[in-house]
């Protein structure tokens, strides 16, 4: 499909009709779903694509010689091409299907890290990271004897690039692992600068784009990174599928991550040899229908246009920050609206986020309360948890109003 960049404003009210979930009420109220950063809702077009695949094209891929198997294989590989195009990756064989970004990042940490890290090496993550791009590296550093370090945040919730050289002091930086967009604060990180810094030191750069890919154009060649992971479920796709992209020259030199069927060239008692890319990293039966759904979701997003989605979210986040500023006792975290994606984390007096979220639920408002898989960040903010409202292409300003009205109810209960 030819991708046409649309700059026209999106019509969230019209798009909402594509999402069956919004046809119901909760506690007798319309659903204000403000938790898309955790997982997005699903458009009918994606659901239909999966159903159609199951009903007309389903068989195991890459094995059968019959027509149906060929059709299924073509669907899987067509989906891979869609992901390649989404990320502007040089080759489809560099795109590996995984369950989610977490599995993709684990693949890199294990398959690259185990053989490339050792004592004297530094693994650098950030204080803003999701646990998925933090815990695997901490674990792998411990396993290999490498040193695990963390780039701090400044007071605006943005990475402190001035602390980079100090973070590299006295060791050999081998990996820099950073998210493109923070799932907790919405901060858009200056990945290009970090990549340049990493490459100057001969380090690889591993980018967690799970929170970025739903909202903005992600171009691996423009970013210059070495590995990048995304999750389908955050971008209108089904759960259980994601992708990790890596430079072919790195992937080729890596040993496999998961072993078993499909990923081999030949299996003998004396030893086994590995298949070509991407198969070397795709052991077992692929998530075929999920890949088809993922591709349909990508088509759906391209049809709207990432520029339009980004613009819509910036508008919503500005509106939300303005409206939340009217609520006495409310503290928001993170950078100004122009430097963040559609995510607002906040605390409300000393009312625990669980209590805030519970009362909001009774008002039909779904937000996230917790540490958002970012405990190091919570520690930095000096809190155990925050409330998080997040927006997507189907979010309406009225839902933010519903949130603010709900917060006044919360205040009444805990006054």
């Amino acid at each position, binding site marked *: 499909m030819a991708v046409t960049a649309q700059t026209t404003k999106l019509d969230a009210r019209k798009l909402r009709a594509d999402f069956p979930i919004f046809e119901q009420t909760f*506690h007798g109220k319309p659903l204000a779903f403000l938790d898309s950063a955790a997982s997005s809702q699903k458009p009918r077009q994606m659901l239909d694509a999966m159903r159609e695949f199951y009903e007309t094209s389903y068989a195991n891929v890459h094995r059968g010689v019959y027509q149906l198997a060929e059709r299924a294989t073509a669907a899987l590989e067509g989906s891979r091409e869609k992901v390649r195009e989404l990320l502007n990756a040089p080759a489809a064989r560099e795109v590996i299907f995984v369950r989610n970004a977490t599995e993709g990042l684990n693949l890199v940490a294990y398959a690259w890290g185990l053989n490339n890290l050792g004592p004297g090496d530094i693994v650098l993550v950030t204080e803003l990271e999701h646990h998925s791009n933090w815990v695997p590296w901490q674990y792998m550093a411990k396993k290999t004897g490498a040193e695990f370090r963390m780039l701090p945040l400044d007071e605006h919730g943005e990475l402190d690039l001035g602390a980079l050289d100090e973070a590299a002091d006295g060791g050999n930086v081998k990996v820099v692992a950073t998210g493109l967009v923070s799932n907790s604060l919405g901060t858009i990180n200056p990945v290009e600068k970090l990549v340049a810094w990493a490459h100057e030191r001969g380090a690889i750069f591993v980018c967690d784009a799970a929170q970025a890919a739903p909202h903005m154009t992600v171009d691996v060649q423009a970013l210059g990174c070495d590995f990048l992971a995304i999750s389908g479920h955050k971008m209108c796709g089904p759960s259980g599928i994601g992708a990790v992209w890596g430079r072919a020259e790195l992937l080729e030199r890596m040993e496999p991550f998961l072993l078993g069927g499909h990923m081999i060239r030949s299996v003998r008692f004396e030893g086994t040899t590995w298949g070509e890319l991407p198969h070397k990293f795709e052991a077992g039966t692929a998530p075929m229908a999920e890949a088809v759904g993922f591709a349909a979701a990508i088509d759906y997003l391209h049809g709207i246009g990432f520029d339009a989605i980004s613009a819509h979210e910036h508008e919503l986040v500005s509106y939300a920050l303005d409206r939340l500023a009217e609520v006495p006792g409310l503290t928001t975290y993170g950078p100004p609206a122009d430097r963040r994606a559609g995510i607002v984390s906040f605390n409300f007096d000393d009312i*625990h*986020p*669980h*209590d805030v979220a*519970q*009362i909001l639920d*009774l008002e039909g408002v779904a937000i996230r*309360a*917790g*540490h958002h898989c970012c*405990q190091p960040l*919570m520690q930095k903010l000096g809190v*155990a*948890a925050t409330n998080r409202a997040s927006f997507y292409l189907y979010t309406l300003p009225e839902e933010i109003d519903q949130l603010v009205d709900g917060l006044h*109810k919360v205040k*009444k*209960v*805990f006054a």
Partner: protein
Amino acid sequence: MSDGLDSLYREIILDHYKNPRGHGVIESADAEAEGQNPLCGDEVSIYVAFGEDGETIDEVKFSGRGCAISQAATSMLTEMVQGRTATEVATLDKDELLEEIGIPLTPVRLKCAMLGLTTLKVALHKAKGTPLPEGIAGFDELDLK
């Protein structure tokens, strides 16, 4: 206020939350443990002082941070277990505490409500070797030794 709110954040819960009983620290406690709720990062520390027989709970205190449900439930717990023996509390049925709390809880909030009781049972296990509760997620295995 809607019915849902009335039943969930009923007066007694808010009262225990705003004026927690047994809030504080017992210096050189006979038993203590720290528990975490991995879902929200909440932490609670429980301190126990036994009476002269070394078995009957004389005083329970708790410190830490948490939501209204976890703080109120732990506050109620400190009143409930006073005067009982370590062995009795180790087998205290969670339904007894749930009855006291008296509100319908979803599985997520049940974890909030049980944090104090679970931590108390771990403290007693460490001090007296009483049986551990079921489902002790949030406690490092090494902490239990």
